[in-house]
């Protein structure tokens, strides 16, 4: 009995050592590139520091100032608005693309590649193309609008239209999400669809009673990642609109970036980063809480 216990623990010890050896890169990486930076930025968020002089402790001032900072509060509103539009719409479009890609058609690999093209066009170049599409003077959309007899619009030069325009760009670039949905769709057993067909169900029945529940863990996963990424949208605001007009596209991370690297207000920037981390944590928890109601884990 005693001997056996010792033997067990020896095997267990061996497993423990091996396990930790295998995950050692992750442990080192997490402490170096995540834990240390997190603590560093947490500490910095309580200081006044401009990268050049020594930081001075200011307590919660950075956080308090942000709460009264109208530009900061606007950037939160803008970012939430963007996320609320972009996440559902781009997921619906991605799921639609995935279903098309999942159909048994000729030339599948070509079509898949085409659907994926928007995700690989460099941001600077796609920004250029979209700036032409949205150009109010001679842009693509307004030329079409004029021909159809509609009034031309200001698009990204209107503080109310700029976010929907950037959302359209995000939807267009949803190929990456579509690929994940496609993989999920391929995991849905076709017997289930056949069963619905035998029971006299149509395509919509199949979609809502079989496909959606079966891939709900992936929908959930994409929603979480979508929220995390959308809340941190940066490039379009940086390259295309410079946050304007009237700060209408001043995304959270764009403001953070400006505060950090242009105005060198590191304390404020780190406080902003931590507030964002906190917001993302809450959104993710909320997502998890809601997921109990609709996500289906088979087997």
């Amino acid at each position: 009995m005693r001997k056996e216990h010792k033997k067990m623990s020896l095997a267990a010890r061996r497993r423990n050592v091996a396990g930790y050896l295998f995950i050692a890169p992750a442990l080192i990486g997490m402490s170096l590139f995540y834990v240390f930076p997190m603590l560093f930025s947490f500490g910095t968020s309580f200081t006044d520091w401009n990268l050049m002089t020594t930081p001075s402790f200011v307590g919660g001032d950075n956080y308090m100032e942000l709460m009264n900072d109208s530009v900061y509060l606007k950037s939160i509103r803008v970012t939430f608005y963007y996320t609320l539009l972009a996440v559902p719409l781009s997921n619906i479009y991605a799921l639609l693309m995935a279903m098309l890609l999942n159909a048994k058609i000729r030339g599948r690999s070509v079509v898949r590649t085409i659907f994926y093209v928007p995700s690989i066009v460099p941001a600077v170049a796609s920004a250029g193309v979209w700036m032409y599409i949205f150009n109010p003077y001679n842009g693509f959309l307004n030329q079409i609008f004029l021909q159809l007899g509609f009034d031309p619009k200001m698009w990204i030069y209107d503080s109310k239209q700029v976010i929907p325009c950037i959302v359209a760009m995000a939807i267009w670039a949803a190929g990456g999400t579509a690929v994940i949905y496609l993989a999920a769709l391929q995991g849905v057993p076709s017997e289930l669809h056949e069963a619905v067909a035998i029971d006299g169900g149509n395509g919509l029945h199949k979609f809502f009673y079989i496909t959606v529940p079966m891939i709900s863990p992936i929908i959930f996963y994409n929603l979480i990642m979508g929220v995390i990424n959308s809340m941190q949208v940066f490039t379009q605001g940086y390259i295309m609109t410079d946050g304007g007009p009237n700060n209408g596209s001043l995304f959270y991370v764009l403001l953070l970036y400006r505060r950090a690297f242009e105005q060198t207000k590191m304390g404020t920037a780190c406080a902003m980063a931590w507030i964002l981390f906190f917001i993302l944590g809450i959104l993710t928890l909320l997502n998890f809480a809601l997921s109990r109601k609709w996500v289906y884990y088979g087997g």
Partner: protein
Amino acid sequence: MKKKLSAVFLTAGMVLGLTACGGSGGGNAGSDTSAPENSEASEMDAGQSEDSSSESAEAAPAGDGEITITVVDWNTGIASDLQKAACQEYMDSHPGIIIDHQTIAYEDYNTKLNTLIAAGQTPDIFYASDLYAFNYGEQGVSQDLAPLYEAQGVDMKEKFLSPAIYETAAGEVYGLAYGVVCTVMYYDKEIFDAAGVEYPSSDPANPDTWDEWVEKLKQITVDQNGKHPGEEGFNPLATKTYGTISPSWYYHLSTFLHSNEGAFFDENGLTLGNEEGLEVIKAVNDLAAVHQVAPTPIAEDALPTVASMFKENQLGCYISGSYEYIDIAEENPDIGIAMIPMFKRPASIAWAACLEMSATTEHPEEVFEFFRWYAEADTNPCHVASNLPNEYKYYEDESLFDIWMDPSIYNDDFHAVVPALMAEYAYSPEMCTVKNAGQIFDEYVAPQLDKVWMGEQTPEDACAELADSVGAVYSGLW
């Protein structure tokens, strides 16, 4: 986008320098300046340039080898080649000195410079965007130049144009503008001739008043059916020729505020809401909103380039920095240059990239010697050829004009207007003197004015709201 323009003028300007100083050091433009090799022999005798290393060791000061001076700016393309050529010329005549000249794309310049400084690699000499020019001094990054010039017996205020000196109220000088530009008005003579309208005044002392100018704009603005603004059936959406593009950028507003004896800020806070300020904002806003002589200020970035609009006769007047001259004149050699219309008094602004020197450099003497050589027109005329000189003497002595105003590059109009304007009516733009300017203008002033341009707010309401919101971050003047 406009923000970018402000600081890229040197780039545009330097293109001109290519022709203006093709002779001086141009031959070195292609050589690799980053190679740590002393080519001092090349200037003395091209044939012996192969074996120069032994000579340079002999000539090096203090005997301990070479001193490297790092220079960082945002010029690209030809401009960058020219800067490198100038650096090469300096290296040729100063054995033992290596100039390491690095170019950073303007788009990313502030980020890069700040990260360099944070990484402990502050360049010995660097450009600073004028909005942040004083910050580096305050943070101890850049050197106070006043005592250095004083030690050499130079009175900076006597020598350099006042807008070129970045001086705090306490008398510290944290940088020197070189390659100065001023704001002028470009106009298309063909359009004025065709409409039978008198050209805008090009006399710096007697510009058109704002109202006179607006009247002219109404006459030259025309839609596709030949109607003018104010006539029945005029369709602003189908404007064929715009009278002008609204000078709504805060650099331009600053000019008009000067002209109206107003300002954005004083020691205590926002003064834009005063009578003078409101008058300027209303006047600029009315160009598009009431007089219909200009496209809406909100989407000016989306217009075709000004050069092509002038060429296609789509634009009558355009107020902007002299740095755009080269681009515009390339396609419109006969472009007219006029003085900016005025409110109460004639005014323009002069501004430039601020050249600063590191306060923590290891070789302050050598770096300052190079700084002077690089920043002053006498020794580094390439910059002068492309932009406007930063020294008074060039404006006072007409014989010096030709050094930088090559008639093959600048047309007669430019020649007639700009030197006189620079000498008498050029103010320093207000933005540079406001503490925290980057944040205040980019995050508060420009967005708030967007609301006015979009017609969502009256100038009064916008200024009242702005006074409130900007108060939290406003911390006075430098």
